[in-house]
């Protein structure tokens, strides 16, 4: 990397760090990440440990966030919940970035494939996301892997569309013409030169998809079609507390706060990245 490029990325980072909401987002996400990685030392109890003597206990010194109907510690379940949410989030973002970028590149570059790929993606996007997810989960069954596969299927078209848009702009640029003139093959231009210049929209869209995925995973788990019932996922915890809303509102409360904070953080990071990486968008707000 040349000196000039380094100073460019440093400038971008400095600009990003000047945005207080984005920095707040990074801080919250780091806290979540630490919680997820060091869940076992942070958690005060085993999230799966059933303790009938302690059932429906209010928040206090022994159980910071209270307990659920089986006496399981809510604080520990929320801490472990961050692990599930982040694993699902990262995996889906990686999968959608890989497949979405591939489809977007091919579709944006080759006109004859564009029509076919875009019609298929249109069809997938003709369902409200959650409905398509419920249908796929109904067939696949509840498990962590299946949630990841389902969310990746639903969000890949969204990534592909953004990449395709970027490719349509990039392929008309002079550097592509220059690469072609010095004899670079289509494959080289398509998979090496163009992707380098599409990284900004991929990162921005990836962050946004991350936020959607956390909401979607918790919604599926809440509905009982996502994570298996014993998993300490935020959605599962809220779902288990639904019936005890009157007697033990703390079961639902803390997981909901965690989901909201996590999504708020990711959205702020996404907005911040968009401001620094995509200066064409003169956003007001």
């Amino acid at each position, binding site marked *: 990397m040349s000196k000039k490029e380094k100073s460019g990325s440093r400038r971008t980072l400095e600009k990003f760090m000047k945005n207080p909401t984005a920095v707040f987002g990074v801080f919250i996400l780091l806290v979540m990440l630490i919680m997820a990685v060091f869940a076992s030392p942070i958690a005060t109890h085993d999230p799966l440990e059933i303790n009938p003597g302690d059932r429906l206990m209010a928040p206090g010194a022994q159980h910071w966030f209270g307990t659920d109907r089986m006496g399981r510690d809510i604080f520990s379940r929320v801490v472990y919940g961050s692990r599930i949410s982040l694993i699902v989030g990262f995996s889906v973002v990686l999968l959608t970035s890989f497949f979405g970028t591939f489809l977007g590149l091919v579709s944006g570059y080759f006109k004859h494939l564009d029509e076919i790929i875009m*019609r*298929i993606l*249109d*069809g*997938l996007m*003709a*369902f*409200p*996301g*959650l*409905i*398509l997810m*419920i*249908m*796929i*989960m*109904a*067939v*696949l*069954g509840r498990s962590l892997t299946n949630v990841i596969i389902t969310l990746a299927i639903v969000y890949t078209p969204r990534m592909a569309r953004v990449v395709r848009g970027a490719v349509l702009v990039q392929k008309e640029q002079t550097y592509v013409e220059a690469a072609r003139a010095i004899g670079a093959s289509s494959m080289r231009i398509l998979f090496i030169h163009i992707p380098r210049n599409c990284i900004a929209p991929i990162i921005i869209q990836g962050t946004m998809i991350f*936020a959607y995925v956390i*909401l979607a995973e*918790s*919604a599926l788990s*809440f*509905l*009982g*079609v996502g994570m298996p019932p014993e998993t300490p996922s935020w*959605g599962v915890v*809220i779902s288990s507390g*639904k019936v005890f*809303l*009157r007697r033990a*509102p703390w079961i*639902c*409360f803390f*997981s*909901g706060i965690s*989901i*909201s*904070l996590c*999504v*708020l953080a990711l*959205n*702020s990071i996404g907005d911040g990245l968009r401001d620094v990486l995509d200066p064409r968008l003169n*956003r*007001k*707000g």
Partner: protein
Amino acid sequence: MLNFLVKRFFSMALVLLVVSITIFIVMHLLPGDPAAIMLGPEATNEDVAALKAEMGLDKPVLIQFIEWTGRIVRGDLGNSLFFQNRSVPNVIFDHLEATVLLTLLSLGMATLIGIITGVLAASTHESIFDRSFMLFTSMAVAIPNFWLGLMLVLGFAIMIPIFPAAGYSPLKEGIWSCLSYLVLPSITLAAGAVALIARMTRACMLDVLQNEYIRTAKAKGVRQSIVIFKHALRNAIIPVVTVIGMSFANLMGGAVVTESIFNIPGVGRLLIKSVFTRDYPVIEGVVLYIAIAWTLINLMVDIIYTIIDPRLEY
């Protein structure tokens, strides 16, 4: 216009074809075996094979698809396995009222509140109202609607008992009792859409308010309210209509969650119930209906464009 409608109709038919192929692939070709899942873990291999033959799942995929599409085009979605073998369209129809009312009420609420607050925020740009508006809308997008619903129940049905906590009263039993059951669910469902519509309205209004003709109107002494609502809003509204259309899809998805929280007997809860009772024909039918509804809404949004902006030509 006629030309546009014909073209739009064909592209809609194409999307619906892809939609039905997607449903077919998911329901018939994914690794899960519907026959085995429907019969449960205790079923023997012979039982599964017999049910597969009965459902036509043992035929070649292409034949299955042709037969399936033929049935769908004729409107034959099969019979529900759970609701005493009633036809799927009938079962869906029984659950339609609650969902339609809930979705429309939420959309109306989201559009009205979204546009008004968006316009107010833009016309008081960078004021305390504008800043708190931005904070509020960021939070509204981040809060999961099922959690918001539960918190509303906790606040306004349990702690301060103003509204019923759950349930539904059909329209024929009186409009007020029906509405009282729908207030909390509609707020739950509308929150995210209010934020999106309001943000888009604000951004578009800020763009439009910088135009020369707005300055001219102000210089001529036109009243502020007329400048904002008559001159600016009309030109700012087109992208907002797109967001309203998009919100409709999210509302239909969100209705599943909201109906589950509030025990509303709508299409969304029917879908979830069918997943649990492994009622595959109903799952297929509901998803197909929702996809068709969503495609039709998209068409309507496109037609509305031409009405609000006569400059658009197709």
